[in-house]
């Protein structure tokens, strides 16, 4: 962990120097990267997290379906995070648990425990771009933000709900991504991603994610309480409502494996 903080500081320092120089020679690509690194740095070091999530799926007519999930997440340096999701609702999937090691490049590792079958199944799939639990969020939308997942380009400054925002385009580096680009609005004050537009493979606007009601935890980490994803093509939407964020629970690698999956509840 110490090493991590050290590297962060180093990066922060270099970013600072970069931004000092930026008045002279910073390209949009460099500025986009610098902003994104700042996002990562400011959210670095949260170690682990517990949270409960209510997922509201809505179709074009506004008919709803509700799922409830508890999540445990472990921060992993220089790669995607590890997460364990336990399904509470609907009732007939209660106790089903999903373990995922997301990766910056290549397929994620995924295991699913089905209580009715009493078995853990490893799912080998390159399916990052597929929908998570039938929602408008794909697996890649829910995975942690990692610098190496994208290349960047700063577009402009724009006024936004939380004051002034940087608008940055992010281009996925993984060929299995479902997007050609994301456009992110990042507030200048705290480097929170307020809004994201997702562009599909034919570069048409597919979805917009809006993150609302940011709360700060442990004096550092900002988390949105509500995330609204709207699919412009199918007119369907999904809301994620987060409660009970808890940080620093002393979780370790050993809480995230096949055996813990079975015992998770």
């Amino acid at each position: 962990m110490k090493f991590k903080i050290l590297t962060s500081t180093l990066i922060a320092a270099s970013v600072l120097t970069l931004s000092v120089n930026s008045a002279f020679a910073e390209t949009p690509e460099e500025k986009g990267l610098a902003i994104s690194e700042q996002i990562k740095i400011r959210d670095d070091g949260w170690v682990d997290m517990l949270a409960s999530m209510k997922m509201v799926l809505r179709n074009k007519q506004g008919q709803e379906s509700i799922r409830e999930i508890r999540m445990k997440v472990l921060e992993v340096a220089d790669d995607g995070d590890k997460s364990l999701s336990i399904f509470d609702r609907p009732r007939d999937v209660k106790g089903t648990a999903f373990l995922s090691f997301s990766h910056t490049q290549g397929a994620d590792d995924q295991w699913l425990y089905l209580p009715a079958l009493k078995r853990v199944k490893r799912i080998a799939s390159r399916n990052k771009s597929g929908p998570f639990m039938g929602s408008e969020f794909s697996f890649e939308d829910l995975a942690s933000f990692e610098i190496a997942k994208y290349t960047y380009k700063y577009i402009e400054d724009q006024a936004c709900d939380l004051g002034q925002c940087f608008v940055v385009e992010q281009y996925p580096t993984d060929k299995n991504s479902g997007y050609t680009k994301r456009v992110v609005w990042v507030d200048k004050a705290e480097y929170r991603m307020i809004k994201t537009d997702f562009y599909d493979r034919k570069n048409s606007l597919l979805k917009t994610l809006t993150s609302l009601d940011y709360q700060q935890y442990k004096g550092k980490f900002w988390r949105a309480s509500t995330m609204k994803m709207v699919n412009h093509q199918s007119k369907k939407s999904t809301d994620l409502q987060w409660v009970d964020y808890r940080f620093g629970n002393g979780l370790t690698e050993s809480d995230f494996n096949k055996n813990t999956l079975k015992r998770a509840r």
Partner: protein
Amino acid sequence: MRERIYNFALNRPWLVLLLAIVLVFGTAYGAKNLVFKGDYKVFFSEENPQLTDFEAMQEIYSKSDNAVFILEPKNGDIFTPENLTAIHWLTTEAWQVPYSTRVDSISNFQHTIAEEDDLIVEDLVLAPGTLTAADMPRIKQIATSDPLLLNKIISKTGHVSIVNVTLQLPGLDPITEIPEVASKVRAIQAAFEQQYPNFNVQLTGMVMMNTAFSETSLSDSATLVPAMFGIVLLTMILLLRSFSGTFATLIVIIFSIAGTMGAVGWFGFYLTGPSVSAPTMIMTLAVADCIHILTSYYYEMRHGKAKKEALQESLRVNFKPILLTSVTTAIGFMSMNFSDSPPFRDLGNMVAIGVMLAFVFSITVFPALLMILPVKPGKATADNHGMMEKFAEFVIAKRKLLLPVTAVIIIAIAAFLPQNKLDDNFVEYFDTTVDFRKATDFMEANLSGLSLIEVSVDSQTSSGINDPKFLKAVGDFSEWMRALPDTDHVSTISDVLKRLNKNMHGDDQAYYRLPEERELSAQYLLLYEMSLPYGLDLNNQLNVDKSSTRIIGTFKNLSSSEQIAIETNMYQWFADNAPEYKIDIASPTLMFAHIGQRNINSMLIGTTAALILISILLAVALKSVRYGVISLLPNLIPASLGFGLWYFIDGQVGLALSVVAGMTLGIVVDDTVHFLTKYKHARDKYGKSSEEAVRYAFSSVGRALWITTLVLVAGFMVLAQSTFKLNGDMGLLTAITISVALIVDFIFLPPLLMMLDARKEKKQQKANNINNPIVDDSNLAFAKGNAK
């Protein structure tokens, strides 16, 4: 009043012409508002129950608009590394189609295998570069045995495959959206063909069908309308031998069409497949008015009258019959307002407007033009005159034979009317020269039809689809549907659960069955949901709260009655086996299957209303209830005969043909009007016997009747050449009906009139005998003398 109108035209021809030009062009400017709607849904009114059902289903589940690439490798085998590489390329490229949300092919099929506790989900063709001939048997085995693919994406023998592009059209502007998709799909097709010349590629799917609707209609307007102009010109020049008469007629036609299209443009109409045939029809019908005026005009000029007097006389004689026939024709076309299908209502109203405009121009612009143009009466006109009289003699001499013989023939042919099969197959709305039809026929012969029937089964409780009892019903129903002789493919959630059950038990085939616990099904579905690729979700098969599921059956291109039978059997299956669930069945295929019958029912009312109105009009115009009643026969027989003959020509009737009876009614009435007017004129004015009156009628209107019929038949035969079979069939049957009408008016009506009036004469004679026997004798002698 009427003299004032045409005298004004004759006295101030230039002014009338100028006024007309200003008015017509002012109106015609409205045509800029006309746009073509190619969407198949235009055929259905908003209150159409099958459309409502289908839209309700589309609210619940994902929409299913698509475009399909049909691929046939020339070596006859999809499963070679080269061919799979090609399909992989096309699959990737197809994601670029505008509004696409999903591309499905054998290459990106999510194949699932179980290895102990590992579940491996991957594209069937992942890395085309690494494929070798040794991989082929395995891939082929998987592809041709999976129920999701077999007969939907790949043929059993592996000689034909498709790449299906699912589209989510925003529907904001179908006029640009559909062509946008079609042009990209075609560009990809062209690029593919260039890169992989060892494939035959064809295109089908809903978007290509909608494209075919607009393209066939547009190409029709580009070929048929000029052809029609050509034929009208040729016929007129040949028959009337008058350039100026032809030219004036042409102007009336152009004004009528331009005025109509402009007017409906202002009214906010849009164009559809059927209504683009309006100009051809208006043209055909407008000619008739002009011919009648010209014929009388030349007759008068030949008999020594000066130009103006001849025109005056012609207009005086023709004003009433032309007005009457225009009104009856308009009524006939307006009967189409009873149609269940908006494009036919539009067509009816457009032609009705056109016909009335043609009437107005015929008595204003037409005489004005003839005044201005140098006119010489054609000589040829006189030559054939003897023909009509000879024919009249023949009819009068053989009347005793003609009446029963024609009656028997009429009854015999009309008896086949009910034998016509009701059919609306939207694929067959296009003839076999249209690419969409060729592609779809090919797909049906080699893979599957384009007929879909969607069945929604509702458990009526949230998450109710996981109930083992519900799943068993869905599974049994799916198997029953799969076993039907005309089924090509069934897409059902029960297959997914069976496959997952097998996967979760180490691919043990014994577990290829439905899970027996509710929780297990629910958890399998969760697993399935988590493994679906980009662009797919369960909403395709399940509603939001998982209380209902949709089963989609793909069938061979069946006739409407067969489709309705399948639909009925489906409802029956649930009534017998699972009555506790709520069933909804809908699809575009079923919408078309029902529209023929619905339209026939509504058009029966429309046609009857038109018939009653027209008969009353005739009775008033002829000032005789008796002739009004007699006219029913020659007015009704043509359509009955036409449909009887249709059984031998095609034998299938549907949406387009259901309007023909009403539409032709207004046209065939014209012949009857002209013939009866002249016949009655001879009887009442000159007190002639029925035979004499027949002779008079033949010689005065016989020629004009057969010329107008010739023009009308030629016009509708041009329409019959349409590659849009819906219009083509309508044109052909109308042409047949109009021909039959002339025959009926020439060889059935006169003997009938003579028989009926002879009876009346006898009665009168009897009455006269008592009072004045001498008059009777002289009358008899007069009649005998004339009969020779």
